[in-house]
């Protein structure tokens, strides 16, 4: 591709749900420290593809895969891959904010605490503060770190979930329609945040919102019926799509 190094690569990837093929022959490179959006009509497999990158699909019974997903050249679907380590490198933010019913502090510290060497209290506090600052929510919650995260608004909860993912210092962050359950103002804040986060992290975001993809992403993959129709720089895709299908979708003829 044009810019950056390709640390994350999906190669000839197929995914079956029982006997149905949900993803077919997908190959794409996800550039480092850029935002890559996955778009497509609902049911096209965008979330499934996203969840293939940190093997969250394994929570569902009856899922089998073929092909490779390479992280730093290492196929994450090999046998004896440590899925736990993988997920620490590839973090995830979900469609609906899903904080634990614990304090804000405990939410953010959770991943660190689950790690191999839990840092001392002071170090942990630093990590929590850094993560909350990175997620642009420090100022809003710094006075009530030990109150329940469930008391926050949806948008705040989602930023806590982002902070929680940042705390384990991942390399890649997967976001599954992170703003779809939020109001416009909260959405704007999340988008702003994504824009800043790409300085440090490789971000893959699934969205059904075309404008959002245009606003936040550098590259876009367009998926339909489990197949990758087109992949390229967002700007080119939006202004001069390479395929008729993409054009129809972008101009809102279906979806």
């Amino acid at each position: 591709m044009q810019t950056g190094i390709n640390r994350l690569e999906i190669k000839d990837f197929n995914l079956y749900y029982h006997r149905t093929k949900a993803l077919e022959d997908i190959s794409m490179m996800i550039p480092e420290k850029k935002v890559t959006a996955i778009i497509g009509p609902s049911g096209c497999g965008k979330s499934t593809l996203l969840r293939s990158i940190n093997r969250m699909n394994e929570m569902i019974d009856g899922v089998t895969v073929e092909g490779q997903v390479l992280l730093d050249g290492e196929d994450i679907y090999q046998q004896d891959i440590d899925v736990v380590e993988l997920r620490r490198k590839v973090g995830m933010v979900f469609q609906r904010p899903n904080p634990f019913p614990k304090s804000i502090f405990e939410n953010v510290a959770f991943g660190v605490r689950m790690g191999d060497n839990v840092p001392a209290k002071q170090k942990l506090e630093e990590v929590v503060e850094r993560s909350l600052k990175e997620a642009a929510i420090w100022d809003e919650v710094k006075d009530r770190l030990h109150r329940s995260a469930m008391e926050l608004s949806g948008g705040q909860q989602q930023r806590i979930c982002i902070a929680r993912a940042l705390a384990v210092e991942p390399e890649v962050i997967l976001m599954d329609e992170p703003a779809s359950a939020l109001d416009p103002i909260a959405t704007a804040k999340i988008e702003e945040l994504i824009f800043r986060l790409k300085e440090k992290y490789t971000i893959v975001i699934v969205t059904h919102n075309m404008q959002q993809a245009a606003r936040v992403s550098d590259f876009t993959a367009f998926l339909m019926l489990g197949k990758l129709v087109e992949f390229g720089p967002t700007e080119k895709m939006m202004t001069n799509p390479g395929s008729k299908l993409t054009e129809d979708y972008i101009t809102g003829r279906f979806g």
Partner: protein
Amino acid sequence: MSLKKTRFKYLGESLIEGNIKITAILAIIAVFLIFFFILRESLPIFFNGEVQQEITFGKFFQGIQWQPVSDHPRFSLWPIIMGSLKVTMIALVFAVPVAIGAALYSSEFAGRRLKEFIKPVVELLAGIPSVVLGFFALIIMASFLKNIFGWTYRLNAVNAGIALGFAIIPAIYSLAEDALNAVPKSFREAALGLGATPWQTAVKVVLPAALPGVSAAVLFGMGRAVGETMVVLMAAGNAPLFSLNPLESTRTMTATIAAELGEVVFGSGHYHALFFIGLTLFTVTFVINLISWALFDGLMSKLYGAKK
């Protein structure tokens, strides 16, 4: 840094998970063991020549007397089967209208507040130990009913049946209420919209829609009644008479085990006979519960479709 698993990293965790699995398997084996052990201890009646000198399967159905401890022991199950049936029927006749009526009231007519009051009350009734119900029936209720109705025998099937009814009302109520509550609101709105009164809606629309669940509740109560021990042991008078008269003293299958197991000679015909009664109780209640469960499950998938 490779993503490959390091050896032994998750050893502690696998140990915990292994323990959980083994515990679960043992627990499940224990649960099935009950059936097999009760069965095992009943089998000599069919296969052990020595035991068969005293008792055979056929003897359970000869005559009408249960006199296991005598020079000529008799093991006819008829009187105690009759006792169980009699007491169970009386309990159901008393408990079903009360429990279903209350369930109908709380699901269809009571306000939210009242509803939240009724449930705990019923749960408290369910929380009364059966020995306390038996105590109440034996000491208080029996004399009271005898005086009012001029009974000859204080302790009889009606007395025990009513007390047993107290024990099974909560079970029937809560299952029936669950079934009624499961009927979608749209059914009620449709009926009311067509000009039906609340009563008509409840009885002609909601109750029929929930009928499998309500039947399940009745069956569930019946299983409880057949298996209940202390109430009938204390309140029914305990004479194994073969009689249809509900005002005579009676004894159920459960009470027979409870009354005789303490004195039985281990390994004797009598011992195995009591296990056979236990096996029968186990099987009967298991089948009743299974049907009840299937009915209830069927209702739920009918009302909510096969979405899973």
